[in-house]
């Protein structure tokens, strides 16, 4: 062992390290100890967001003073008349839809 102890030690270490450890069921046992799979409901969050937005829009529609039309609001906005009550309601609906879209997009990414 004296010939070149340095080389011999290097060889011993490398050969010892190169010996594979047989699995012998280790991987299987380990996989059994993993926590149970997550119960994912990917539809739940978008559904809640959409439902809230729809409910908010419906309430706004129902509670708005008579004679207000969202469609008329968008027409007013197109004519750059943003101060009319209909235009304000239309802006509110557009805002709710925008927020919904942003939340859903963020959730997706």
């Amino acid at each position, binding site marked *: *062992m*004296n010939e070149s*102890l*340095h080389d*011999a*030690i*290097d060889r*011993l*270490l*490398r*050969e*010892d*390290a*190169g*010996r*594979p*450890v*047989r*699995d012998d069921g*280790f*991987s299987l*046992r*380990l*996989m059994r*100890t*993993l926590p149970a*799979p*997550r119960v*994912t409901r990917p539809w739940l969050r978008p559904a809640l967001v959409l439902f809230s937005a729809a409910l908010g829009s419906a309430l706004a529609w129902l509670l708005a003073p008579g004679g207000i039309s969202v469609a008329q609001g968008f027409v007013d906005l197109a004519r750059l008349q943003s101060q009319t009550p209909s235009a304000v309601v239309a802006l509110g609906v557009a805002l709710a839809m925008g927020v919904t879209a942003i939340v859903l997009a963020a959730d997706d990414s």
Partner: protein
Amino acid sequence: MVERPEPADSELVLAVVARDDREAFACLVRRHQSLVRSTLRRLAKGDHGLADDLAQETFLLAWRNLRTFRFDARFSTWLYRIAFNAWLTDARKRREVLLDDLEKAPVADEALPAVSTAERMDLERALATLSDGERAAIAACYYADLTHEEAAVAMGIPLGTVKTHILRAKAKLRAKLDEDYR
């Protein structure tokens, strides 16, 4: 028929993170169990039972923290860091045990092709006489196959200290084995 190449570690990690893919994680475990367990066996002074417990803890921690893997290092390096910390935590808990038992014979392993049993037993015994730091550096650079730089990062010590540990460890092993063979 063209065989499908084995997926890279990074692909498997992504599959686990994105889809909770257990088969991908099982593939990672099968691929790295040998390296992790053999490294931990050296760190644990040949105590195979303890090494396997720590290996199990290592993979469970890896599973829980896979989202934090940044792909800027090899997966095996990241895994070694977890294994090293698991061993360190355990070693701190059982400090008294680690400081004695140097004469205790290591557990015999299955047949080995190149290194004789006598040589390996001598090596295991000699490795057990090293300090924790020296043994950890040898385990990282030989058994976990890390570069000195990767070992330094994984162990959280300066590169120079890793090199010193390796040099001292080899000098001690040299002296110990020379004494045994005289």
